[in-house]
């Protein structure tokens, strides 16, 4: 009958030890080829783009990008839909653990913030490469400084800006008449409407952003947040206001703060169901687009805080062992093209704000943006309020851990 083969065990241990032993930091190198050389090398390549796949509209946009790059550059784009960007980071890491220095399975990653910081620190990224992409030079570095500094970590040409994000709040005018204009006012609103507000559980990025909004708005000196989080005593002093705020807020939340939605789309669903009265988004056009898609009632509108809300940039990066680095660069460049950026900013498609500078575009390109429709729930750019800078990623890591310690037990 079934027999056991003992040598198998020792064989496997040996194989695994070799697997784990074959490793070391990857070599980084500046991309020195010219653009035409890269485009020529990209021809016929297949690019596996690892990007969060939780939003149908974004998925449809990525599919459109795939059609465009096949037509223009003969590059085949495959969208690998992730539940969490960290999955791709894991994968690249596992590949390095196994000594796979080329021919990796990830060619392009949609990334920013702590995932970028982790990959940069671990030397898991290809490049610097952005300087050779023609459309990179159309980016608005002056008014959108976060295109070069990702959560205070310099991008150093290792990731190409793709879109802008800004925290905003969704509410249903059928149930809410007056909206709070600041973090302290939000607490008063929650006290007056117990059980009607909540936020996604950190480390969901919108949930973490809400914490950073509270931290930044209540900090006596927000400048300290731009540096790495300090030692414990100082960390405690700076974050004390955040925790006392949350201690006061949580009992007023949905389910008394015992449970939190898993993500912001989940909270958007709760807003639609009437479970809560507000939702949060990083995309100023999300409300309009959700109304157009029958996901929210047309009475939903958006608001921001008077002194501004947290904003940042999201990017694409290439792993050090990408199988199709050239194809990935071609895709990254196309993503920054005026055409692709304008289609992306259209609220009927996705509504993600552009990273480009209108001043650097020619009139024809500018017209692509000026002719875009404005959704009924979207605040115009001049009503979006000031942008508050993302704190250094170390703050986020520490705050998320502390949040888990305090509220998730």
């Amino acid at each position, binding site marked *: 009958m079934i027999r056991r083969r003992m040598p198998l065990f020792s064989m496997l241990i040996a*194989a695994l030890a070799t697997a784990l032993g074959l490793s070391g930091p990857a070599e980084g190198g500046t991309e020195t080829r010219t653009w035409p050389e890269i485009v020529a090398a990209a021809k016929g390549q297949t690019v596996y783009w690892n990007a969060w796949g939780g939003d149908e509209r974004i998925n449809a946009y990525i599919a459109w990008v795939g059609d465009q790059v096949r037509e223009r550059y003969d590059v085949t784009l495959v969208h690998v839909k992730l539940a969490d960007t960290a999955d791709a980071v894991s994968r690249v890491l596992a590949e*390095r653990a196994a000594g796979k220095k080329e021919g990796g399975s990830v060619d392009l990653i949609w990334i920013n913030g702590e995932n970028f910081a982790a990959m940069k620190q671990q030397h898991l990224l290809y490049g610097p490469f952005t300087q050779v992409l023609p459309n990179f030079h159309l980016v608005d570095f002056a008014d959108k400084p976060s295109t070069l500094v990702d959560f205070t970590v310099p991008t150093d040409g290792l990731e190409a800006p793709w879109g802008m994000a800004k925290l905003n709040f969704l509410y249903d005018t059928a149930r809410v008449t007056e909206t709070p204009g600041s973090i302290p006012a939000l607490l008063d609103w929650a006290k007056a409407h117990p059980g009607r507000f909540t936020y996604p559980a950190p480390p969901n990025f919108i949930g973490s952003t809400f914490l950073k909004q509270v931290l930044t708005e209540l900090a006596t000196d927000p400048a300290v947040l731009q540096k790495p989080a300090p030692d414990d005593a100082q960390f405690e002093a700076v974050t004390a206001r955040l925790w006392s705020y949350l201690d006061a807020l949580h009992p007023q939340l949905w389910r008394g703060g015992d449970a939190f939605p898993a993500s912001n789309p989940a909270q958007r669903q709760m807003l639609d169901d009437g479970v809560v009265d507000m939702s949060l988004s990083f995309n100023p056009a999300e409300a309009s687009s959700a109304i157009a898609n029958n996901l929210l009632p047309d009475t939903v509108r958006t608001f921001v805080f008077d002194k501004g809300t947290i904003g940042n940039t999201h990017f694409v990066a290439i792993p050090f062992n990408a199988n199709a680095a050239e194809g990935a660069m071609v895709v990254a460049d196309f993503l920054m093209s005026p055409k692709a950026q304008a289609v992306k900013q259209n609220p009927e498609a996705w509504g993600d704000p552009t990273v480009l500078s209108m001043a650097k575009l020619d009139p024809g390109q500018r017209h692509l943006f000026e002719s875009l429709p404005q959704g009924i729930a979207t605040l115009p750019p001049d009503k979006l309020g000031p942008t508050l800078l993302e704190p250094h990623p170390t703050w986020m890591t520490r705050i998320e851990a502390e949040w888990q310690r305090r509220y998730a037990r």
Partner: protein
Amino acid sequence: MRRRGLLSVLPALTLTLFLAPVIAGLIGTWLPAFGYLPALGGDSFTLAPWAMLAAQPGLGESLRLTLLSGFLATFLAFALTVGFLAACHGGRLVRAVRGLMAPLIALPHAAVALGLAFLIAPSGWLVRLVSPWATGWQLPPDIATVQDPNALALTLGLVVKEMPFLLLMTLAALEQVRADERLAVARSLGYGPVTAWLKAVLPAVYRQIRLPLYAVLAYALSVVDVALILAPLTPPPLAVQVLRWFNDPDLSMRFVAAAGACLQLLVVVAGIGLWRLGEILAERLGRAWIAGGSRGGNGRLARPLAAGLVQGLVALAAASLLALALWSVTERWRFPDALPASLGLETWARQAPHAASVAGTTLATGLLAAAIALLLVLGCLENEQRRGLTLSNRALWLLYVPLLVPQVAFLFGTQVLAIQTGIDATWLALVWSHLLFVLPYVFLTLGDSYRALDERYARTALCLGAHPNRVFWQVKLPMLLRPVLFALAVGFAVSVAQYLPTLFAGGGRFVTLTTEAVGLAAGGDRRVIGVYAFLQALLPLIAFAAALAVPKPLALARKLTVQPA
């Protein structure tokens, strides 16, 4: 002779195919748990990961949720199975329910969980049906019916899915222990129907279903996909938490994750040990109870209660499926409307191209994994019969290894090995990873029928001079066509339902209906979830229907060709 040589290595090959990745994966997880992962600068052995694990906030609560839902779900599924069979033995209801169990087992866990979540949520269908006319609720009540603090929704989801499996395994075991004769003797001694079953049948049957029960317990203690949908998140049960640690952007958390994965294995081992202790205790008490000689009542109360509960669970599963189907054709359905305000096929139309390719991957992977598993299992069984061997208990335990070892406890290690051998993120790795879980189920489904086939058929054919291979192809296989196809359908259903193996071995390049549905679960658009979860449930059901429908014309055709001769 050469063929025979091939056949005799099949058991070893089969065992290697599905045990090697598990063992390698365990090693690849235990090493980092003790600090050894050179890729992240861990090149010496240390207990630091365990200390970090112990310091993780919410670990105690995660463990509490895991143990509570795991034990409660297993116990309830077991109690319901025993209660139902004891109260309704031999009745028409048992036959009717038996027919329903196969499709229930075929339904993927994730699909049932997604449907259930929508059904029982405060804004779910059940509340909508009675609001606001009966409840007065214009807005959903702020109560915790899913992702509740005691993981009762998770427990319910597990019971709905595990009870059918246990019921079917117990029904199969009943035939082996000659339950009818035991019952007849006990009844003639004046025992009531339920008491007779519990005293005369259960002790014998329990021995047969012990392994399936342990598999259910191990599964319930380490489930990821159902927990992602129904369990609380802050903090989640241990298995989900381990997956989160594996996915933490802070790469040093990989060590904590590895230690957590090992803890998950220890939890399952300890859980099974604890259950075993419970068995011993129950045996002591039960023996005294049996020896006491009380005859028990006529079971008039037990019957409707047990029947009602089981029917309720079946109805819940059916309603979950219906909810998914309804959402997939919904355009707009706001609380508290009992039914969608507008219906349409727009979601299906928009998802069609992508859904077709995802369903194609699911179908191809499932069919291939099930077919390979079937070939190996048939080879093993035939080899066993030709050599006159019988399956020992220890070998059966080996078969259960992939079902008893929690998936999160070895899949990361397996992934590293797959990359090392260059097969990661390939179809081969995906099919192989599914095979680990498909193979045991195919073996369990087919084994008994294969061995139960009256050996005189084969002996007669052999005496007439037929070669053993000819006997296999022309006598055994045609006679066993129905169980063979049924095993194939079971294997296919198991493959369709795999979540973690697809995630790890597929490397994101292979998207199946399960990964798509679970991935969308956090995304909120119920209409799209409805499409994928419904398709996910539909594929295995079609496979079962096909397995049941195909043999008829085939058998008829054979009869027609054989008769003239």
